[in-house]
């Protein structure tokens, strides 16, 4: 069994004394803390949304009821985990009083690794918004409390089961409304402004090349820059696309220069 006290003896042989090697593992002392840190309280009470509140309450009750048996199974797992996570302080793993047991994600509508669409019926048809909400909550839960993936209960949910028009109605349309509104406001005032300055009416403006360019810029701006941060994001994106190429070309630039580049 390799204890974590052994790594320091390994690393000198792995990487010959060399300033390039930056493998400093000073986290050994914080290791037990990170174990405890992994378990957080489930913040179920705050995850309330209109159609989900009923579900949330049920989950909480289930969690409380299951708290006792789950604790036991967690502790059993802990002691076998003790052999996996041998860190020289098994007392921390097995007997940590701070243990808050978080059970697996459970939801009566989550059946067999996917959403049971029959339970999402509203007025004869599937309520896709509810499916989307449920999946959002599930992903949020799992992001905060990552779970082990289990072969006996495989997750097979695929977002493409929700039809395209449900996505369009819920996500695309509101944003499209917003952007069209912005474009219309900008367009109206620009047209008025140009008309007041030059006396050229709207129809004549559209015939002018410069005005057409301005129109194109306005539409592109509204589409690409939706928040202030987008300007920086776009600049970073453009740099990103060519950065790797530059790294590969670096060795060819040296053919023409006598000094080596050490920028990267």
């Amino acid at each position, binding site marked *: 069994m390799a204890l974590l006290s052994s790594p320091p003896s390994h690393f000198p042989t792995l990487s010959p004394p060399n300033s390039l090697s930056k493998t400093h593992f000073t986290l050994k002392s914080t290791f037990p803390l990170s174990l405890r840190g992994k378990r957080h309280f489930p913040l179920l009470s705050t995850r309330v949304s209109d159609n989900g509140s009923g579900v949330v309450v049920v989950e909480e009750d289930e969690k409380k009821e299951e708290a006792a048996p789950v604790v036991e199974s967690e502790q059993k797992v802990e002691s076998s985990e003790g052999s996996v996570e041998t860190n020289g302080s098994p007392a921390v793993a097995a007997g940590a009083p701070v243990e808050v047991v978080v059970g697996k994600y459970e939801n009566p509508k989550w059946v067999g690794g996917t959403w049971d669409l029959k339970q999402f019926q509203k007025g004869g048809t599937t309520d896709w918004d509810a499916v989307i909400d449920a999946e959002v909550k599930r992903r949020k839960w*799992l992001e905060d409390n990552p779970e*082990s993936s289990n072969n006996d209960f495989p997750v097979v949910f695929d977002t493409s089961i929700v039809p395209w028009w449900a996505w369009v109605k819920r996500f695309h349309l509101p944003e499209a409304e917003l952007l069209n509104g912005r474009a219309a406001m900008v367009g109206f005032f620009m047209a008025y402004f140009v008309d007041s300055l030059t006396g050229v009416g709207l129809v004549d403006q559209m015939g002018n090349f410069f005005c057409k360019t301005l129109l194109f810029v306005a539409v592109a701006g509204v589409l690409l820059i939706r928040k202030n941060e987008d300007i920086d994001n776009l600049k970073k994106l453009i740099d990103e696309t060519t950065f790797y190429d530059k790294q590969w070309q670096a060795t060819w630039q040296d053919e023409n220069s006598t000094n*080596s580049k*050490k920028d990267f």
Partner: protein
Amino acid sequence: MAASIALKTFTGLRQSSPETTVQSHRPTTLSYRPLRISAGKFSPKVTGRNLRVAVIGGGPAGGAAAETLAKGGIETFLIERKMDNCKPCGGAIPLCMVGEFDLPLDIIDRRVTKMKMISPSNVAVDIGRTLKPHEYIGMVRREILDDYLRTRASDSGAKVINGLFLKMDKPVAKTAPYVIHYTSYDGKSGVAGKRESLEVDAIIGADGANSRVAKQIGAGDYEYAIAFQERIKIPDDKMTYYEDLAEMYVGDDVSPDFYGWVFPKCDHVAVGTGTVTHKGDIKKFQLATRLRAKDKILGGKIIRVEAHPIPEHPRPKRLSDRVALVGDAAGYVTKCSGEGIYFAAKSGRMCAEAIVEGSENGKRMVDEADLRKYLEKWDKAYWPTYKVLDILQKVFYRSNPAREAFVEMCADEYVQKMTFDSYLYKKVAPGNPLEDIKLAVNTIGSLVRANALRREMDKISV
């Protein structure tokens, strides 16, 4: 300078070389060498001996380079610091490597024919349905593979030296030799070793991610990832699940810019993860990886913990005068998958071939132009592969929604076929245009859906 002039004027001039002694050599060299010999017109002949080349580092890159050099008639010295080194490594080799390097099948511990990709929300997708019966990903133990390649190099005539490279003295004149200083561990001088030096005409730096040769030639630094791995011996019944299956876990918990893995080795599994941007949190990521695989590795015992840097991109300078870098020392590890063994061996071989060609089987001195040919050939052959993997990494390892979309896309058969074809044969497969368009549409759809869900998630978070 002179090197680039030589490049432009020598082609087409080789038959009109004025040295008559060379003419008598040419027919014999051309009759058995399938390579086109085209030495620099201005390279002087090496008199009385063959060209001497030192290969620093005896891993896949060094072993392949030394073998090709020795077979090409060059006096080769392969310097390796630890003959039984168990280099921490994923250990996966593509199918084409077995054929191209004539690897015997017994050095492959396992043939992986199935992979499971697991998304942040534990959506699990199996890939490998499209593999033909003879196709597999080979899992090897590095100590076995490295030793085999070194032995083959030694059998071809290379001199294998157990020593630690210390430094090199640059040549004093244009065709003067390099002097390599190394500590030789030949058993007689005990553990400390004996300081020795060696004169050679060219050097191939194959000494890995922390390359000393690279430092000596001022090759510059690269960004690197830390890969951390624990070898875990799991109970036999759990081991049967990993008989021919490898797993890849993606998610912010497992790694912010890479993936966590469970790879089967000879009789245990290797569970690991890696990161470039958050190296300090690597232990946290490792815990998360073990948590995600918990049910499948329950009851396992950690038998070894190891870590190593992995280069993310090539060094700014990959060669200098008559010193060239290959393998991890040059930074030839792909993005997205982090694969390096095949590219190390292939680059070692390519560089050695360039030296053999440039020196006409060791008869002429090489210069930088001959070594640059290896870089040209390499970039031309593998740049598309590297670029595509870079784009995949940028698009799909960006964030959790991107990873969810990635796993969703892996369920598609066309994606699986393209991925495996490119991986196993190291050629960016052209594919069917109609399917490509469908794939592009589906990819965009997946990304849009995942990101939409993400925005909703942000709305309900506290």
